[in-house]
């Protein structure tokens, strides 16, 4: 369902972020990308979300070439991909409820759907009691769970989690991983980037190891090897 075809990204100062990267992801897979900082993991995610254009090569998502999608329809593409980031990226002026509702509004869902789905999805990430709190009033782990709730509320085909546990303590890391696994068990494809050895080793899922913009390993039931 996701296919990277010899994707290369060279930034203006000749630094190579991605170097002829090719791989494909099947529906329902849980795939992790590991590597040092600067290995190209985040660039990979940005490519998939059409935040950045590749210098050469192409990225396919469900048979559409991501970088040939016209500007006006990029929103449509992004609504099929739920995103979770290391820095949570919640809207600080909106409550937990409104943050999630915003994603649903953007997808053109009705008020009735919003009022039934948002509390439900917050319950799912165990935040039913913080529904009207602002992000500033939540802990890091709670904010990340709101972000996950926002990512899954539109029932996307893929969840992209870019270092979702990077700012969290071990307990919150464990909880976030449990939620991601649960989402994957329910049939959603999950793309995870991380450099947390413990997370990778306990997952026992496919691992792609990257180094300096290249894929150096692709293991079916991988471990964190660098």
């Amino acid at each position, binding site marked *: 369902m996701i296919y990277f075809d010899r994707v290369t990204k060279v930034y203006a100062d000749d630094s190579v972020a991605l170097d002829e990267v090719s791989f494909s992801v099947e529906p329902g897979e849980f795939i992790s990308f590991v590597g040092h900082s600067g290995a190209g993991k985040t660039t990979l995610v940005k490519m998939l*979300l059409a*935040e950045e254009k590749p210098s050469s090569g192409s990225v396919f998502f469900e048979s559409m070439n991501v970088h040939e999608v016209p*500007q*006006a329809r*990029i*929103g*449509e*593409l*992004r*609504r099929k991909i739920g*995103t979770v980031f290391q820095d949570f*990226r*919640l*809207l*600080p*002026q*909106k409550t937990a409820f409104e943050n999630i509702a*915003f*994603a649903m*509004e*953007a*997808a*053109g869902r*009705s*008020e009735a759907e919003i009022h039934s789905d948002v509390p439900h999805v917050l319950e799912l990430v165990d935040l039913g009691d913080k529904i009207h709190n602002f992000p500033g009033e939540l802990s890091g782990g709670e904010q990340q769970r709101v972000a996950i709730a*926002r990512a899954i509320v*539109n029932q996307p085909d893929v969840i992209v989690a870019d270092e979702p546990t990077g700012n969290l303590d071990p307990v919150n890391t464990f909880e976030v991983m449990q939620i991601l696994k649960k989402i994957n068990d329910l049939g959603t494809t999950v793309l995870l980037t991380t450099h947390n050895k413990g997370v990778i080793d306990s997952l026992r899922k496919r691992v792609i190891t990257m180094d300096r913009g290249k894929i150096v390993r692709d293991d079916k039931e991988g471990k964190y090897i660098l």
Partner: protein
Amino acid sequence: MTWVTVKRIFRAGFLDFWRNGFVSFASVLMMVFTLFVIGLAIFAGIILDSTLQEFRDKADMSVYFTVDASQERITELQTSVQALPEVEKVQAMTREEALAQFRERHQNDQLTLQALDELGENPLGAVLTIKAKDISQYESISTFLRGQEALTTGEASIIDKINYYDEEHRNALNRLSEITDSAKWIGLVIILIFVVTTVAISFNTLRLAIYSSRDEIHVMRLVGANKNYIRAPFIVEGILYGLIAGVVTLLLFYPLTWWLGRATERFFGGISVFSYYLSNFPFFFVIIVGSGVILGAVASFLAVRRYLQV
């Protein structure tokens, strides 16, 4: 766009306005300042214009007839003057009216009134007051009157005296209008600089307000919101700034023009800014509130555009 979308956009705009209280307050304040300057510019223009008009209006021409001039010939002359394209208005005053006016003007001057009574008969002739369309035309009207007189040879002249703004008066008036004209220009340039500056500052204030939301805009894009759906609440917010600032400015002008009105009425002798403000309130409302709304909407539109390119 559906009704639900419109409702959401307005709700988001109002919520942002409320929750970013301080930023909203600062933006409104800045905009009040801008609109105030625009309002002052309008008033300055009006005062300068009406003052100059006042000077020009004061110029007219009086034709004094002899005491024994017949009414027929006066009327005849009046009609022919009236027919001139340069003449705007002719006002006739009979001998009796001239006397009544004289008595009224000197009602506190017993000596003069006594002298008048002493005479027994009305010493004043009829008067024609002529207003030309432009002050430069009095010369030619005067020549015309003298010419008319010359045509009726054989009979005694009925015109006693013609008083008007001649070359000398006109030069003085021209100099005055030159001064007011250049004052107007300098004033306009200064005001224009003020307006442009404050508009630029307002623009920048809004840009900064939206700059602080750039991360949010980025996140909204990543969540898959359309550009217009992200932009619209910011424009609603900008319009709200403009509306509030406009109303505040209009309220501020009320006491200001009242105070200025009393001062200027005495000084310029022309219109009172206060009554002008009140009688032209719809005009001021449209200009001030309209400028605020347009400024807010355009500034927001341009500022958001910058951060939407994701």
